[in-house]
């Protein structure tokens, strides 16, 4: 029928065939992706300036990869993100299980306090962290990677509530009879947790980890306040480079970080969908 070129009338719910809807979607996609595409495209631009296209080159990638301070910042960022993610996932998952499982006095207050880092403006968090670390005299002259301690702690503080949130919503769909069944079959508290609850939490843990990793990797404000002179992270470094001029070198470095995030996200989503089909058991 389509081959004959005869068009059926647009059905009420076929929004994708309406012109205004297509135009709207097009606009949204344009504003979402045009900046990113420009950034990546101009990382290949053979020009000192980022305005006119002068031909294709890889030289700014080479330059970025040979820029020791930029690479150091990138390594710092990834190290902090990895550490912060690992700790946040454990801490966040434990907090989620506690809030889901137990009833205790001041539970509502505890929940509210846990969500505080999510709602407090980053600038306030940053200043608070700065004052806090100065007040307790947190050492600033430690060798790598211990000099990243302050930033990592700050990142854990704002990352783990997100993990808690994601894991908790996952826990809400847990059938508690499964845990009782495990105990009924002889499992103790720990075995029941390991064999039944943990597998159920897994998609939430993976999603939480991804969230924590990206949040930590691109955080600027809080990091800016907690980083010392020798602990520059990638976003802070890019900011300082951009203050002089936006060179294709910055583009190249950003493009590499984008590639890294896309790859990581793809892997997690693949894992998620696989686990999702398994978890739909009931």
């Amino acid at each position, binding site marked *: 029928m389509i081959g004959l070129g005869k068009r059926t009338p647009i059905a009420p719910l076929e929004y994708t065939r309406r012109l205004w809807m297509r135009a709207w979607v097009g606009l949204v996609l344009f504003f979402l992706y045009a900046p990113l595409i420009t950034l990546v495209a101009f990382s290949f631009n053979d020009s000192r300036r980022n305005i006119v296209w002068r031909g294709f080159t890889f030289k700014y990638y080479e330059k970025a990869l040979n820029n020791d301070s930029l690479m150091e910042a990138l390594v710092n960022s990834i190290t902090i993100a990895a550490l912060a993610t690992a700790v946040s996932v454990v801490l966040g998952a434990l907090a989620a299980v506690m809030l889901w499982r137990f009833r205790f006095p001041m539970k509502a207050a505890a929940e509210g306090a846990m969500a505080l880092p999510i709602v407090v403006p980053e600038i306030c968090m940053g200043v608070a962290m700065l004052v806090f670390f100065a007040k307790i005299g947190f050492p600033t002259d430690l060798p790598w990677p211990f000099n990243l301690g302050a930033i990592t702690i700050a990142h854990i503080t704002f990352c783990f509530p997100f993990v808690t949130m994601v894991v908790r919503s996952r826990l809400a769909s847990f*059938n508690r*009879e*499964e845990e*009782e*069944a*495990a*105990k*009924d*079959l*002889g*499992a*103790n508290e720990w*075995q029941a947790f390991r*064999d*039944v609850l943990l*597998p*159920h939490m897994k998609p939430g843990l993976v999603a939480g980890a991804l969230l924590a990793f990206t949040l930590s990797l691109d955080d600027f404000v809080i990091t800016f306040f907690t980083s010392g002179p020798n602990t520059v992270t990638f976003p802070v470094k890019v900011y300082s480079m951009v203050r002089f001029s936006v060179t294709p070198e910055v583009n190249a470095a950003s493009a590499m970080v984008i590639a890294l995030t896309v790859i990581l996200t793809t892997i997690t989503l693949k894992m998620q969908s696989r686990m999702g*089909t*398994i*978890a*739909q*058991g*009931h």
Partner: protein
Amino acid sequence: MEDKQPIISIRNVSKRFGQVAAVDNVSLNIMPGEFFVLLGPSGCGKTTLLRMIAGFEIPTEGQILIDGQDMAKVPPNKRPVNMVFQSYAVFPHMSVADNVGYGLKIAGVGKAERESRVAEALELVKLDGFGTRKPNQLSGGQRQRVALARSLVMRPKVLLLDEPLSALDAKLRAQMQFELADLQDHVGITFITVTHDQDEALSMAGRIAVMNKGDIAQLATPSDLYEFPANRFVADFVGSVNLFEGRLTLDEPDRAAVDCPGLGKVYLNHGVTGPHGADVWVAIRPEKIYLHVPGAGKAIRGAAEDAPEGHNFARGQIKGMSYLGDITLYDIRLESGAMLRVSRPNLSRRDQEDFTWDDRVSMHWRADSAVVLLN
């Protein structure tokens, strides 16, 4: 059976949630090899009682003994009982074989023995060949069999089943009732089932405890429960029943009479041993009442009251009918204005045409059909 030691002994057990007593001073002995059913409406405490046996709830008062051992300090994972949960609680991330083998793995049973016992259990519930499947590839009935196999493989002393058939459709439920009874017969394990479905209870149970508001209303075999209910709650909850309030006017060892304002005088051919002149209730099952066209009985038998000798008798008018295929239910308004429900099997394909709305009919029932209830 009496000389055996009970496998489960519940002694004066109460469970209170705040001020509410979910289970109120219940004592019960369950014998080895029994198919025991706890029957009652939702909220009667039957599931709480079952969960106390499994160890998921701690009794507020009283004692539970399993095989002679006090279970007060024994956690669920150390009790010699296993439970089939209402939601089946099959582990979704494990294969069928891993589900069934889970308890054995925890118990440290070696791989070879585990595999053979899992295969044996799956065969028992007719799931052989399903071992590698994931629960989301199974139907509800199959998932329940997995839950059954997972418990049976542990060779428990007692198997607890919480509303095992409630999630299945009617046909499958009827089939599983037979299969469960068969299975119990085959493995010889004591089964304790909780259900709110009286058909389920009557068809499977050896003995039934009917529970109401945390208390046991009656403990009896299925037929005793149905034919000799101990009180109005049991008579009404198990099966359907016509209940009439009345006054005991005659009570001798071989006969009794109850004067009911709604039904007239009801004669019984046995004594009631209730206080004379007491307020009592007469209960008659709908299927125990014969229905016929007025005058028919007289023509055939020549009986004075249009009913066989020794039968009770009533007249009325059909005010409602519901055709259920195998039987038809008639709601009949008696001359007193009270309503009486009568069921009648559709013995021939034209039976249901015999009576219709507004027909005047005669009814009679045997002198031993009615049950007199004191409370």
